[in-house]
């Protein structure tokens, strides 16, 4: 809301609401900042994958992995701050539970993303050319899924968000997630047709499973958001 466009009585009303709802407003701002950092982490994850797919494990790739880790750590700090405010009795109890639940699932998604990069880095995985196109597609779809999660969480929790947008966004997340599932099966089938060592096959399969857990997490977030939204529909 732009304060300068308001009349004097409206401004007075806004300040009065701010006075009584200051904890709620603080949580709302923190949630906005949390989601900014969260999507920043996902974009760092995306950059890291792009570099890996084009150049392999380079200094630049390691720098992006580190950037992803730092962003993830920042989201952890913010989550704790939000939890602290919620435990200090911001919002009604039902909403507190909903926010904590969403934060938990959203946070888990970042952990999966971060560990995908660690698998690449620690196990020095080299992707065989035949499976690369499907990996590129999976990374694309996974990141799109996460962008949708960001929008959906903002629609429900951040100032100016509209609850009615959730349904469309969660449908889109579901759709993207099922495409990732198809690709996952195609990738695992492809991996086991490759003429490489069985150990390598299992490593690659593990990587694919880890990568697709990110979109599974996105679907989980979407389910929770739908539930929270439906609960508030009169």
């Amino acid at each position: 809301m732009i304060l300068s466009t308001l009349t004097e009585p409206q401004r007075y009303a806004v300040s009065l609401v701010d006075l009584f709802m200051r904890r709620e407003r603080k949580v709302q701002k923190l949630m906005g900042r949390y989601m900014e950092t969260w999507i920043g982490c996902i974009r760092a994850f995306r950059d890291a994958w792009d570099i890996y797919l084009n150049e392999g494990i380079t200094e630049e790739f390691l720098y992006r992995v580190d950037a992803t880790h730092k962003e993830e750590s920042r989201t952890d700090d913010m989550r704790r701050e939000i939890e602290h405010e919620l435990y200090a009795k911001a919002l009604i109890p039902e909403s507190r539970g909903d926010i904590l639940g969403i934060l938990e699932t959203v946070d888990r998604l970042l952990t999966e993303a971060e560990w995908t990069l660690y698998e690449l880095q620690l196990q020095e995985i080299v992707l065989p050319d035949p499976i690369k196109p499907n990996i590129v597609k999976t990374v694309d779809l996974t990141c799109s899924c996460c962008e949708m999660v960001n929008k959906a969480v903002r629609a429900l929790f951040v100032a100016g968000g509209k609850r009615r947008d959730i349904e469309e966004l969660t449908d889109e997340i579901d759709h993207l997630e099922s495409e990732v599932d198809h690709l996952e099966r195609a990738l695992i089938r492809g991996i086991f047709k490759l003429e490489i060592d069985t150990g390598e096959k299992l490593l690659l399969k593990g990587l694919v499973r880890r990568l697709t857990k990110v979109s599974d997490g996105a679907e989980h977030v979407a389910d929770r958001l739908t539930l929270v939204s439906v609960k508030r529909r009169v």
Partner: protein
Amino acid sequence: MYHLLGGIFLGWSLGANDAANVFGTAVTSRMVSFFTAAILCSGFVVLGSVLEGQAGMATIGALAQQNLYSATVTSVGAAVSITMMTLMRIPSSTSQAVVGSIIGVGLISGADLQLLGLIKVAICWVGTPIGALLIAWLLYRSLGYLFNSLSPNIYTHDELMRAGLVLSGAYGAYALGANNVANVTGVYVGAGLLTTFWGMLVGGLSIAVGVITYSKPVMATVGKAIVRLDAFSALVVVLSEAIVVHVYAWVGVPVSTSQAVVGAVIGVGLIKQASAVKGSTIYRIVMGWMITPLIAGLVAAGIYFVTHLRYVP
């Protein structure tokens, strides 16, 4: 003036009991602290009593011929029965206790009872839960449509609910004062001990003291044991109850806020097609409604009888 103590006692028990019906759900869902609720509730009760309590005063004062003595016995009989209900944590009806007492004292003392007035009161009692049910149904549909069109995010939703519950609670307290103050001091005004204004002020203040000092345990019962409502339904229930009670304040018949709440909860339940009220608790409340006037009548008649016994050597 010590005769007034009976009325003040009754006002206290009314406040302790009925504040739960306007702020119970907001307090137990922790949207509003008990302190805030008690301050708001008592302030608006006094305001409602003083500004709009006169119509009920006229009705209660005219139900039976009162003298100072019968007025005191009526008040004490009603207060004792309401206090018993409060201690048992059963939301009960002060209006029915007062009318039960008036009838009890009237029958034993041989005073003229105004049958037409009693019939008007009884009709309004029946109309209270039905009216609240209809209003709750209409409000749920209309406000629900507006609310869904607004489609607020979770914070705006919370802010709207909290503000709505505080405002409707304050309105409910105002209506409670306007409607129920006649139960507290109506008989004294009828007996000529107080002017209408002083009756409204003393009645309002004694209800307010009851709200502040002893309404917390009953709020816990109303909020947790009777209804398990979401915030929007709670808002509709409180608002419907306030509207109905306020309408009867204009009509001039003190009615039960507890009956209005149960009617409104059933109205919401019809839309949600869910059992929002525990059957066993409703049974206890209905039993309370039936027992309250009976106990009040018997207690008041008993006090009147005992205090009129004379030693004959």
